[in-house]
């Protein structure tokens, strides 16, 4: 686990984002074999997951340490509410503003990212130093 001078953990946020972005790109490329619109929609679906998720990670880890436990939990709740709201707003914006859209590619990529992202974060998490 990478620690800063103050003893706080430096998160592998960049590694998480890079891994999630790579998976989104791979899925988009696979969908683009069907059509260009499907690949574009898949990319949008992945971004709808990655952007609120990056905000969530940034917000949750604003406070660290046992002294800030209540702030940590408060931030967890606020970040989750904002993440769900952002996801809903992004979906609404895509369905209203983006015409045409390949809905199966969009929802499939989003669902795949939601399913595999905790696994990615588990494998890329910071390891504690003994």
């Amino acid at each position: 686990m990478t620690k800063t001078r103050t003893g706080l953990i430096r998160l592998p946020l960049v590694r998480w984002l890079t891994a999630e972005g790579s998976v989104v790109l791979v899925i988009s490329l696979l969908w683009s074999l069907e059509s260009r619109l499907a690949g574009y929609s898949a990319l949008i679906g992945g971004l709808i997951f990655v952007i609120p998720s990056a905000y969530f990670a940034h917000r949750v880890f604003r406070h660290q340490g046992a002294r800030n436990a209540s702030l940590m939990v408060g931030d967890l709740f606020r970040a989750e509410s904002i993440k769900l709201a952002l996801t809903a707003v992004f979906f609404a914006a895509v369905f209203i503003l983006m015409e045409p859209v390949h809905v199966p590619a969009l929802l499939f990529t989003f669902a795949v990212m939601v399913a595999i992202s905790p696994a990615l974060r588990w494998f890329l998490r910071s390891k504690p130093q003994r």
Partner: protein
Amino acid sequence: MEMVMIAASIILGLGALATGIGFGLLGGKLLESTARQPEMANQLQTKTFIMAGLLDAVPMIGVGIAMYLIFVVAG
């Protein structure tokens, strides 16, 4: 049309309720464990973050489907 809206409302409402209960339990356990072992606080926070990702997986997909129902099927 009304049935689609009702379906979307049920998806969003139950998803929000379940997420609220789950996050309440998760946050409570995080506070409890941090009070018990303060030196583990950072590791517990990282594990809570990963569990939060698992916890909100189904409601997130529900939000996507509900928005599809509202803006594409009913719209």
